[in-house]
């Protein structure tokens, strides 16, 4: 039993090492870029001094201490929850609305200028207003994130609904599909890739929006941490918070990709699509 268990364990370890090597090979260019960036940063630090640019090593130590001490994590999770709640509140109506409006092209047309205006308006300028309305707590940040996400996802979902293939609808109707079946089996699945494109674009905005709202006024969160560090001339603190923000964005991106890959198994893989030019 033990020998079997051991051999399995060592096999797994080998597999793990093999995987890591394969990963490193596959991402060698990305790793190279990363190394160049870090080296450039280090050069700036040496040239201009730690005071202005902090240093990669300093940020890394601060980051690890912040994680271990729990303080950085608590700021990060505060910001992340603002982003997630705001994302959900903004994305759900933005996804549903184009489907409801599909039956009333008039309403879509009437709403269009409002939506285009809302999409184009710099939402960050609304942050002070939201702070006035909702206070400096989580609500004002959630509101800012929600409104930013809403317009991005709305236009993606709308283009998904508009990309509907009429021939598929006709086929379905001939086969006996009613209006609801068409919406459920044709319009919605066809729009899912567009909706996910919207999610992917909106995701960094949701975290950025939360951080910027915190910059203006807050007593928690990564934006607050940046503001606080700046008033103390603590560039290492600023860079650490920025680094954490980037990590959250990467994590969000990764989650969207996972869900998308699950839901869109029916699509040809992207490299094939590139080859065939579709």
């Amino acid at each position, binding site marked *: 039993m033990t020998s079997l268990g051991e051999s399995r364990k060592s096999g797994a370890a080998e597999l793990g090492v093999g995987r890591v090597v394969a990963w490193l090979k596959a991402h060698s260019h990305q790793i190279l870029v990363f190394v160049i960036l870090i080296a450039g940063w280090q050069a700036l630090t040496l040239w201009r001094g730690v005071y202005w640019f902090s240093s990669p090593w300093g940020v890394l130590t601060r980051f690890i201490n912040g994680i271990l001490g729990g303080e950085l994590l608590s700021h990060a999770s505060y910001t992340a929850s603002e982003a997630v709640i705001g994302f959900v509140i903004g994305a759900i109506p933005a996804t549903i609305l184009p489907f409801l409006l599909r039956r009333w092209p008039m309403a879509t047309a009437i709403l269009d200028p409002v939506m285009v205006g809302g999409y184009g308006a710099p939402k960050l300028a609304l942050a002070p207003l939201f702070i006035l309305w909702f206070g400096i707590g989580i609500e004002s940040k959630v509101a800012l994130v929600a409104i930013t996400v809403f317009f991005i996802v709305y236009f993606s979902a709308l283009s998904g609904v508009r990309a509907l293939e009429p021939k598929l609808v006709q086929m379905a109707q001939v*086969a006996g599909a009613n209006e609801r079946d068409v919406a459920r089996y044709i319009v919605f699945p*066809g729009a899912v890739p567009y909706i996910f494109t919207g999610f992917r674009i909106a995701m960094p905005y949701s975290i950025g929006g939360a951080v910027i709202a915190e910059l203006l006024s807050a007593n928690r969160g990564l934006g607050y941490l940046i503001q606080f560090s700046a008033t103390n001339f603590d560039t290492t603190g600023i860079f650490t918070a920025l680094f954490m923000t980037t990590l959250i964005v990467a994590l969000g991106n990764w989650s969207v990709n996972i869900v998308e890959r699950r839901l869109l198994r*029916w699509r040809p893989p992207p490299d094939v699509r590139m080859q065939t030019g579709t």
Partner: protein
Amino acid sequence: MSGQPLLEVRGLDKRFAGRSGRDTALWVIKDLSFSVPDGEFLTIIGPSGSGKTTLLNMIAQIDVANGGEVRFQSKSAPINDPKSLNPGLNCQIGYVTQEDNLLPWRTTLQNVLFPLEVQGRLDAEGRARADMLMRTVGLAGFEGHYPHELSGGMRKRASLIRTLVYDPPVILMDEPFGALDAQTRAQLQEDLLRLWNLGRKTIVFVTHDITEAIALGDRTLVLSRAPAKIVGDHPITIPRPRDIRGIMTHPDFAALYQRIREQVQ
């Protein structure tokens, strides 16, 4: 094959508006009439662009006519007003379109079961029938594949059995075997005839291929170039069951082929 025709096309007109509002409307079909008795396998042959697909679209009620009428079971179907179109006339007219129109987000089997699902008839019997059809057309083993993972011919076959699975009394087919190799094509023609023999549905089958029109049909109509008119109406006297692969050697074949070919331009 007596009494009232099941399907009737009377004085049908169709035109498409000219480009960019100019009034050079193009008549694709002008004053077209024919009728199809219950249980007939009618083949229609005509040159590319003669309006065959347009005709089937109107019969299936997914496109409006500019005049004339389509009658089904002696009742006039409302096809002059886009609002009153009733695609498929309550699942009584099946339509195997020229393009496969499979749903890319459904597997082959899910695509085949789609009509049963939306008609609320997805039971064990329906599944068994789908299974039988999948095997008949050589799609067994591809149930879980998505359309992009199938070959063009396999997609064609899937779209064919998607209509056969719910067994509508009339089936329109628009060049269902157009893109297949000769072997598969002959195989599927045989399968189709076998399935048709079991239920004797009414079939309107559009094709470019004179041999196919003769091999399958009880009767062949020949359409002219647009605006489409019927320029030939040939009963196919070759008795059934037919030997599809050897149809050319039948004594009546050569003469029929010759007469139809002279009319197809």
